[in-house]
């Protein structure tokens, strides 16, 4: 238990902790930084910003990405925006308020001091990004514009059209390019980290595979930073990129880094539903749509059948035969309840048999009333008296198009249905993982010299992440937190000199990697990697998905174990190892997911409460809402690997809430 | 500046500048030719002026030659270089889906125009130069024009050549503006329209002159 020292500064008030900490920690002098190497795995917002900043400070950075360019990391897909407590709108925002919203939104399962620091540095991110040339949206006066997002009472979200993640990543990427050109970052595109190498208990390097030539390479450094994102692809279908994987984090876990809160996963309520078994991924429709869309399913079962058989169109169902279930259940917040609540409610209706597509897993998101409401407003503005219904609809559509045009177009391209005429069909999908490698206040894992930042760590979002906070955390960690805190550790390494890769530790790690690759290529199996990945995804979704119970979780653990054993007997990987081989890449990733999935289920089993994205059917209030247990479960579960996921040892970091009062979230 | 000139962008800017000069030349040449439709004397006077004025002869004419040769050689050089930028061709390329025939075949229309210019030099330019500087006899330009266009084969060649010129200009006119960096939401649509008018009206005008003299000769 001694290993879980959060290192949160003590003896100073919450708001002074970070300043105080920065003043006290050790620094490395500029001349010595030149002799220190840092490896960064992943080049999304966290990894990209960390690489650029560490290189600017003078460290020699070796950055790794499995894509062909740092710019393609999946941070690029974030749509809505980035939060920052700038209070430009003068609506009473502050660091404290952002901190409060984040802790509350996370259902009181995050670490107070980390979240406060996040809120504190958030404003700096915007200054930094503007200086880098990120073209945030502006108003006609030339000032930065803001929008509001779910779960908060202020407008603090900065955005660049529906492509905020892209623009922020390109900003970090441009900062990286500057350092690559200076030779301070050695960029390894199309490389995948396959193991971390520990020397004397410290992370001193990695084994990576060149995905073009198949070469297995050794890279050494004085510290290793994991910024490889989340593990949402354990579900097979998610909004993550196809290549998003947990291998780097999982290898770190197997080498001694504790894995925290794996069961905290965010299921995003508004995604385009699955259309068939061939489906490879799910596409998110921005949360902003719920500002104007009303979610419903038919009230009568015969209507549901008629719709599925295409005998009836949704527009033909009378108003009184529709069940606007969010408005019915949560009159105060209606369609704007937080993500976890909206997702569960959709699942509840579909499980009851009211799903409106052929798979039975879809609900309607209807813009008709918004179109009419905007249309009437426009008619008034334009002084049109007694407008016809057609005129109102025409005017209303124009406004809806201005607001959501690109999303509607994206929907139409995918589904081939016009959302201006018929309601959209949506269903929840895995989107983000709040859990990840356990880190202390310095973002160091339980392995010395091994750091985890961005979605790869666990620290800031608790059991549920608020919209527009992932970008904020990635950049905060990479630009403003890690570059300082890593110095505290590296200051002991100024006399170490270059780490040799010609040591027993590197040799052993490389051999293990080679053995595993050889196994895959030589195994005379019967099933493709995807066959196993899809099976794993199904178990995860059915039993460790939006609603979980002890029986299902118990079954899931067993089934995943069996599936894993079958995988190691029967997986088939064609091609060879000395060239590009996408099947081989997938095999390694799925092998790790098959272990992570079991630990995930186990964590969900052990956490006998409902909170945020983790909903246990046994722990509900009388009216079916999540019931948190602060007395017994206000802790971070940090799992230590001991050989098998089923034998992982649970360590608990008790969470303390000194500056915030624990309350039950209610959206009624 | 030499760095600019040797850059891809620099070269295309100079292609455009020589193109602008040729556009101007084409227009003034047309206006003089057009005089032959109404007034023999005016045409001959204008032709004599162009043929004897020292500024035209020793300043504008060399510039014109340089412009044509530059436009030509640079065009061929860039085309060869551009072809080299894709060593393996596509098995299937649906180029018509995204760009006009004219824009994709400037080299073809250009070479056809070049061939015509050669013919034109042999027919008109060299005799004029010879008369002015070697034999020192007075040429009646009008009669020369009328004689040439009495031949229907010549008229046909002439017309075909100007079809190629029209095709070349349909892309070239607006392309030159784009190359020198003039692309503006407000004015570009107007430039494109003007380009299309120029690209059709001027060649059609030239064709008209040839056909007019042919019909007159019948």
């Amino acid at each position, binding site marked *: 238990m001694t290993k879980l020292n959060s290192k949160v500064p003590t003896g100073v008030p919450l708001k002074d902790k970070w300043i105080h900490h920065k003043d006290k920690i050790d620094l490395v002098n500029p001349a010595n930084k030149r002799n220190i190497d840092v490896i960064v795995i992943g080049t999304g917002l966290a990894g990209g910003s960390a690489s650029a900043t560490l290189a600017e400070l003078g460290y020699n950075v070796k950055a790794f990405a499995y894509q062909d360019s740092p710019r393609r990391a999946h941070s690029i897909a974030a749509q809505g925006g980035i939060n920052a407590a700038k209070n430009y709108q003068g609506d009473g925002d502050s660091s404290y308020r952002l901190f409060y919203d984040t802790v509350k939104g996370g259902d009181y399962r995050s670490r107070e001091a980390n979240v406060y620091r996040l809120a504190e540095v958030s404003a700096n991110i915007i200054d930094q990004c503007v200086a880098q040339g990120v073209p945030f949206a502006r108003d006609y006066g030339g000032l930065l514009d803001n929008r509001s997002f779910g779960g908060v009472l202020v407008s603090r979200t900065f955005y660049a059209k529906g492509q905020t993640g892209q623009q922020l990543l390109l900003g970090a990427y441009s900062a990286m390019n500057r350092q690559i050109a200076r030779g301070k970052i050695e960029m390894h595109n199309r490389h995948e980290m396959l193991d971390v190498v520990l020397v004397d208990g410290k992370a001193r390097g990695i084994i990576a595979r060149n995905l073009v030539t198949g070469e297995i390479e050794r890279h050494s450094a004085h510290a290793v930073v994991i910024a490889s994102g989340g593990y949402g692809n354990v579900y097979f279908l998610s909004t993550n990129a196809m290549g998003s994987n947990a291998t780097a984090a999982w290898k770190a876990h197997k080498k001694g880094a504790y894995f925290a809160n794996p069961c905290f996963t965010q299921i995003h309520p508004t995604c385009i539903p699955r259309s068939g078994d061939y489906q490879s991924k799910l596409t998110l429709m921005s949360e902003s749509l719920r500002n104007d869309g009303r979610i419903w399913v038919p009230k009568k079962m015969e209507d549901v059948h008629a719709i599925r058989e295409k005998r009836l169109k949704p527009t033909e169902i009378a108003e009184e035969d529709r069940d606007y279930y969010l408005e019915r259940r949560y009159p105060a917040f209606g369609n704007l309840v937080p993500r976890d609540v909206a997702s569960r409610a959709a699942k509840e209706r579909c499980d009851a048999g009211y799903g409106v597509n052929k798979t039975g897993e879809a609900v309607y998101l209807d813009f008709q009333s918004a179109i009419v409401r905007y249309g009437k407003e426009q008619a008034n503005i334009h002084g049109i008296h007694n407008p016809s219904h057609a005129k109102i609809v025409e005017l209303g559509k124009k406004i809806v198009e201005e607001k959501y045009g690109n999303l509607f177009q994206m929907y139409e391209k995918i589904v081939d249905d016009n959302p201006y005429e018929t309601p959209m069909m949506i269903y929840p999908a895995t989107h983000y993982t709040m859990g990840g490698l356990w880190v202390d206040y310095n973002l160091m894992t339980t392995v010395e010299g091994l750091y985890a930042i961005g979605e790869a760590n666990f620290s800031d979002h608790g059991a549920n992440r608020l919209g527009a906070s992932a970008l904020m955390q990635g950049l905060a960690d990479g630009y403003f937190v890690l570059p300082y805190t890593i110095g505290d550790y590296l200051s002991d390494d100024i006399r170490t000199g270059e780490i040799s890769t010609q040591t027993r530790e590197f040799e052993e790690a490389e051999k293990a990697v080679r053995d595993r690759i050889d196994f895959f290529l030589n195994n005379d199996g019967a099933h493709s990697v995807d066959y196993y990945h899809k099976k794993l995804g199904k178990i995860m979704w059915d039993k460790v998905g939006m609603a979980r119970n002890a029986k299902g979780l118990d079954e899931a653990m067993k089934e995943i174990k069996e599936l894993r054993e079958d995988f190691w007997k029967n997986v088939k990987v064609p091609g060879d190892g000395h060239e590009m081989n996408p099947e081989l890449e997938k095999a390694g990733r799925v092998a790790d997911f098959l272990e992570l999935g079991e630990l995930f289920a186990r964590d969900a089993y052990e956490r006998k409460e409902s909170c945020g994205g983790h909903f246990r059917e046994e722990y509900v209030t009388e009216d079916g809402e999540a019931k948190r247990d602060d007395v017994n479960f206000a802790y971070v579960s940090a799992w230590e690997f001991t050989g098998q996921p089923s034998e992982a040892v649970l360590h608990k970091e008790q969470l303390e809430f000194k500056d915030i009062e624990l309350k039950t979230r209610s959206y009624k | 500046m030499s760095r600019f000139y040797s850059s891809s962008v620099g070269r295309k800017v100079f292609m455009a500048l020589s193109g602008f000069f040729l556009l101007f030349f084409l227009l003034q040449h047309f206006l003089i030719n057009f005089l032959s439709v109404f007034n023999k004397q005016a045409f001959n006077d204008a032709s004599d002026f162009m043929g004897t004025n020292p500024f035209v002869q020793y300043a504008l004419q060399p510039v014109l030659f340089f412009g044509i040769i530059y436009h030509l050689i640079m065009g061929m050089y860039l085309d060869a270089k551009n072809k080299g930028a894709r060593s393996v061709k596509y098995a299937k390329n649906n180029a018509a889906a995204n760009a006009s025939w004219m*824009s994709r075949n400037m080299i073809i229309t250009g070479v056809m125009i070049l061939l015509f210019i050669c013919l034109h030099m042999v027919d008109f330019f060299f005799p004029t130069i010879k008369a002015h500087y070697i034999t020192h006899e007075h040429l009646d330009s009008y009669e020369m024009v009328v004689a040439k266009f009495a031949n229907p084969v010549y008229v046909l060649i002439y017309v075909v050549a100007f079809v190629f010129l029209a095709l070349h200009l349909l892309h070239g006119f607006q392309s030159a503006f784009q190359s020198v960096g003039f692309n503006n939401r407000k004015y570009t649509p107007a430039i494109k329209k003007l380009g299309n008018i120029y690209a059709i009206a001027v060649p059609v005008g030239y064709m008209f002159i040839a056909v007019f003299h042919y019909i007159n000769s019948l």
Partner: protein
Amino acid sequence: MNLTLKIWRQKNSQAEGQMVEYKVTDISEHMSFLEMMDVLNEQLVNKGEEPVAFDHDCREGICGMCSMFINGEAHGPDRGVTTCQLHMRMFNDGDTIYIEPFRAKAFPVIKDLVVDRTAFERIQQAGGYISVNTSGNTQDANATLISKEDADLSMDAATCIGCGACVATCKNASAMLFVGAKVSQYALLPQGQIEASERVQNMVKQMDEEGFGNCTNTGACEVECPKGISLENIARMNRELIKASV
């Protein structure tokens, strides 16, 4: 629907490649093009053959990784989409579909449909950034006013996903739309002015060294660009270079 696919197969960058014919059956019109490729690959793996290598990642049209030349067009016959957003309803039962890698001397084939686009990386490293340290000690984000029009135009240029469709489409394999977009994003913002002249000169120089062709203003890139990047950006780059040089 049932389809015949003619796909470029090439074992590695050194090997000779060729078009190989495959058949796929029972393709749903709701599949994305890449899901159709998944079906083919699953079929090949089950037969013990090597699947077709192709680049893809986000599958929602933003990462810029996917890069196929389908039936003679970059990202296929639909407009404003990447290959991963292209759906099979754009094709008919019985069609023959040609699938080739993006072709340019500056984009050598790595394997099958995967090409090496690091030329784009080097162009950006040559100057596609603003030289500001990430210390956070910059001025307040609202200290400099930027007109909405310029901010929006800059954003339009910045939406480029770096997929290379412009190069693949251009008859000259020119990269000017890509470079023009990058130059424009910074040229339109006050933050980018200080280094504007160095930036455009260095980026154009690197572009030329990479072996891309020259722009002849055919406009094909603009039509095929999945993000609708405008030709105005090339004109702006030309202007910037003229300004920087005279």
